[in-house]
């Protein structure tokens, strides 16, 4: 196909594009290698791959934009026949944000901190819409409510830092839609959003695409979202396309070993297996040999694979695949390898939370003196949970549900308003971390969401691990080294990692170090705060597997917080569902995820997306996220699809107990 034909026929076209940077040796190191793809009007394609696969670079290239240091080695990118890389600045300015818009990754950092939300969206209107200036503020409000932001006129007056991550993300989406684009590039647009919000936004995008014939390029590692939105899926690995086909072909029976591994590493709601980790990591740019880029991680690789680079050819399923052994890929299993069985746990209590209430509002001196400090509405209230030894308790709920708040309080970082936390022998745990004894501190360890921020970048892994070992066990010298090496072995990293700095490790490796640091204290309880959500799915599976191994070896209890219900299901013995800091439901995992559940649990489960093109979520219409709990009655009253009447608004719902300690707080009687 010549390029003249391409420009006539295709709306978005990438033609044999290679992008790279100049390496130390002076040669060009490719980040993208000979990519060709086309997107038609009204079509949605998904770009899938781990971080570093070049998918974001490709999306930016479609806008004719290269990050600093990157250069086009060969090939071209065009939009509606317009060659993007050779366009003059003026002409690019009219296309970008107008006919062709992007929703960026990291929306938090993509909004200008000194400009109000309304001004930033109005800027897009001013540049790219024919609306008169006077109509802008009404249109801004309309766009903000379209992306389901509560109270849009207030939001438009706010600055970016005054919004939560999910709200910033939705502002970025509204901003991209302001120019009424003909093509929309989405770079991980829903990562970090709550399941319900994500599902609603995806529906909105689907509808818009259908109504306006907007083309979409959806970059994500979330195959569930891809399955919901995309007609066609392209899987990228190490800067090249390894699999391309219809969503059905790619997601049902992926014809490439990498895509299969990726799919198998995703925890799914209906699957009780531990997802299968994809071992190894992708080659760094420039490190790809003459053969297949995936050869080192491939379980069906043969000698031929490292000798010759496979071409993209028609595979057995109809999708185009870059594999020498396309006919053998179905040897690679798609389901997890280890059944997470119902475990028999001892009755010994490891931690007892009794009527815990936590508030961020700090009473000032005046309120303390007048005794008004107790009137503050608690962020988290009435949490009574007894955690058994070795048990994993999953905490789920949308952002603002108080999951992390509870963890912070257990860690002693946020003293409760009232209520108590008792440890195994019934002694109360001091509320503040500074009042806790060394052994109490040792018993409870925490792992944070982002290992980049929780590991000191100036300390070597040895120093990081030595801290708890010295502090709690007084280890030094040879004993210290031996134990550190042993810990690294436990988290499947070798002792040779001891001398490295966190910056020399991948995201998954860093999180393993964070896990090792927590286990160095030989804790009874480990608090896990969204510890896999910053990781690629393949790495997430490995960390989940690791956590499962460690609790078997050490009999450790976990409190596992995540907004991903499928991930929570994989590990948890029991799950507690929280809304606005109040318990809605708690019980054994199979019961909470089963037939009988709280209306809120049903809403959450209904919004979970499966990596299956035929699956559609069940959404309730009034799913706007609320900013604060209602004054009286059931916390979920305003959003409940099964509301029975005034009683929901006025009376705190009674607890209803079912078998095996499964409890639901709801006024309904027909469970």
């Amino acid at each position: 196909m010549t390029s003249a034909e391409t420009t006539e026929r295709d709306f978005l076209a990438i033609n044999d594009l290679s992008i790279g940077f100049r390496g130390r040796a002076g040669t060009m190191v490719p980040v993208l290698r000979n990519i060709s793809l086309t997107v038609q009007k009204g079509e949605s394609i998904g770009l899938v791959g781990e971080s570093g696969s070049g998918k974001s670079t490709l999306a930016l290239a479609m806008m004719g934009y290269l990050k600093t240091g990157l250069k086009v080695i060969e090939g071209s990118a065009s939009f509606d026949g317009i060659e993007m890389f050779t366009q003059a600045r003026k002409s690019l300015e009219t296309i970008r944000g107008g006919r062709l818009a992007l929703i960026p990754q990291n929306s938090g950092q993509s909004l200008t901190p000194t400009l109000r939300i309304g001004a930033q969206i109005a800027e897009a209107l001013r540049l790219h819409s024919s609306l008169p200036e006077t109509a802008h503020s009404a249109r801004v409000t309309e766009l903000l409510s379209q992306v389901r932001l509560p109270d849009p006129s207030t939001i438009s007056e706010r600055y970016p830092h005054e919004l939560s991550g999910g709200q910033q993300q939705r502002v970025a989406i509204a901003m991209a839609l302001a120019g009424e684009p003909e093509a929309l590039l989405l770079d991980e647009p829903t990562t970090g959003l709550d399941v319900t919000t994500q599902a609603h936004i995806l529906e909105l995008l689907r509808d818009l695409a259908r109504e306006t014939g907007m083309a979409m390029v959806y970059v994500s590692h979330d195959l569930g979202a891809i399955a919901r939105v995309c007609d066609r899926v392209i899987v990228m690995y190490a800067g090249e396309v390894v699999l391309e086909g219809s969503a059905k072909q790619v997601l049902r029976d992926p014809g490439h070993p990498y895509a299969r591994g990726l799919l198998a590493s995703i925890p799914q709601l209906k699957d009780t297996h531990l997802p299968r980790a994809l071992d190894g990591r992708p080659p760094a740019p420039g490190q790809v040999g003459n053969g297949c880029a995936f050869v080192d991680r491939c379980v069906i690789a043969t000698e031929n694979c490292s000798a010759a680079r496979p071409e993209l050819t028609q595979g057995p399923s109809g999708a185009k695949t870059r594999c020498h052994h396309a006919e053998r890929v179905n040897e690679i299993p798609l389901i997890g390898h280890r059944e997470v069985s119902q475990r028999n746990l001892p009755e010994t209590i490891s931690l007892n939370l009794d009527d815990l209430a936590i508030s961020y509002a700090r009473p000032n001196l005046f309120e303390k003196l007048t005794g008004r400090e107790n009137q503050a509405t608690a962020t988290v209230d009435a949490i009574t949970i007894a955690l058994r030894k070795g048990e994993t308790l999953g905490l789920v709920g949308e952002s603002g549900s108080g999951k992390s708040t509870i963890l912070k309080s257990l860690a002693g970082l946020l003293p409760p308003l009232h209520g108590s936390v008792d440890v195994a022998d019934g002694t109360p745990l001091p509320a503040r971390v500074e009042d806790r004894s060394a052994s109490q501190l040792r018993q409870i360890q925490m792992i944070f969401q982002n290992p980049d921020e929780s590991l000191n970048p100036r300390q070597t892994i040895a120093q990081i691990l030595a801290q708890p070992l010295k502090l709690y066990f007084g280890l030094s010298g040879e004993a210290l080294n031996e134990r550190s090496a042993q810990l690294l072995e436990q988290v499947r990293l070798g002792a040779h990692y001891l001398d490295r700095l966190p910056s020399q490790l991948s995201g998954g490796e860093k999180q393993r170090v964070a896990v090792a640091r927590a286990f160095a204290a030989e804790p009874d309880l480990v608090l896990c705060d969204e510890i896999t959500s910053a990781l690629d799915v393949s790495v997430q599976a490995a960390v989940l597997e690791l956590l499962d191994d460690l609790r078997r070896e050490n009999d450790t209890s976990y409190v596992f917080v995540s907004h991903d219900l499928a991930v929570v299901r994989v590990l948890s013995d029991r799950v507690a569902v929280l809304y606005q800091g109040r318990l809605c439901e708690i019980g054994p995992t199979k019961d909470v995820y089963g037939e009988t559940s709280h209306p809120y649990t049903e809403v959450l489960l209904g919004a979970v997306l499966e990596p299956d093109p035929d699956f559609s979520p069940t959404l309730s219409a009034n799913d706007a996220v609320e900013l604060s709990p209602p004054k009286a009655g059931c916390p979920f009253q305003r959003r409940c699809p099964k509301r029975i009447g005034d009683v929901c608004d006025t009376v705190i719902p009674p607890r209803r107990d079912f078998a095996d300690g499964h409890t639901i707080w709801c006024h309904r009687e027909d469970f």
Partner: protein
Amino acid sequence: MLAMLLRRLGLGAITVWLVSIIIFVGVEMLPGDTCTAFLEREAQGKLLENCREDLGLNRSALVRYADWAGSAVRGDLGVSANGQKQISELVGYRLRNTLLLASGAMLVGIPLALFLGVVAALWRDKLVDIVVSTTAIFAMTIPEFVSATLLILVFSVWLGWVPGIVLTSADAPLIEFFPEVLLPIAVLTLVMTAHILRTVRSSVIETLASDYAQMATLKGVPYWQIVFRHILPNALLPTINVVALTIAWLLGGVVVIETVFNYPGLGRMMIDSISDRDLPVTQAIALIIASVYVVVNLAADILTMLANPRLRTVHMRKG
């Protein structure tokens, strides 16, 4: 916001108070006192006692501190040992002269530094940047007395455009300082511009690489609108504090420059008072300079707070 402001004001007052104690104790610890310095070789016996009686130096240190600090709060800085003049009066003229010097340097230097810093950043690694940055490094690293001497050599000795030394007396009307004041202003401008422009340049470069600058480009915002709406308001925030420090440095009496040019400002007054062992004057000037630092930094903090929405509003994000 208001509570924050009051707290900062209170902290500023406490700082000045602590500094006043340090100054007083420091002067106290020096061997001898105002009388021994004033009377020199005759400082003994009856004469010394009388002098101490007159100045109240025989009272306890605590009482004298209270007296000094109390009067200073009311604007009375005491009496100089040399010539028994009201220090407030002496200092008044010197402060005015230093202000003339400082405001001249500020009026030229700050806009120039902002402009050159932004230009150097926007045309990073281009010729204009290389010239500006290299000049800035020279201006910063060459000591002021060397650059001052060089300027005197060129502009007053060789070219004869302006006088190389200030001969106007401290209490002369401001207009009489022209054109003598121009060379000292030029030297100060050179140094402060270099300092500020380097901060501005690196701040703008950092902001240019930010995600929101990239986003603005991908939103199709024309280049100059990106610069003025998205880059500069964010990039200039961190420079406010550097500007404030420079201003404080200028107002604190630029000792070296004033000495080189024989300029009758606060800095030279302090040097003179030290060599004359005029302790009350030294004490007074040290207090004034400390207060200037506190006030200017406070102003910078308040300005940053007003300009930066992240500091202005309550942090609403929670876990």
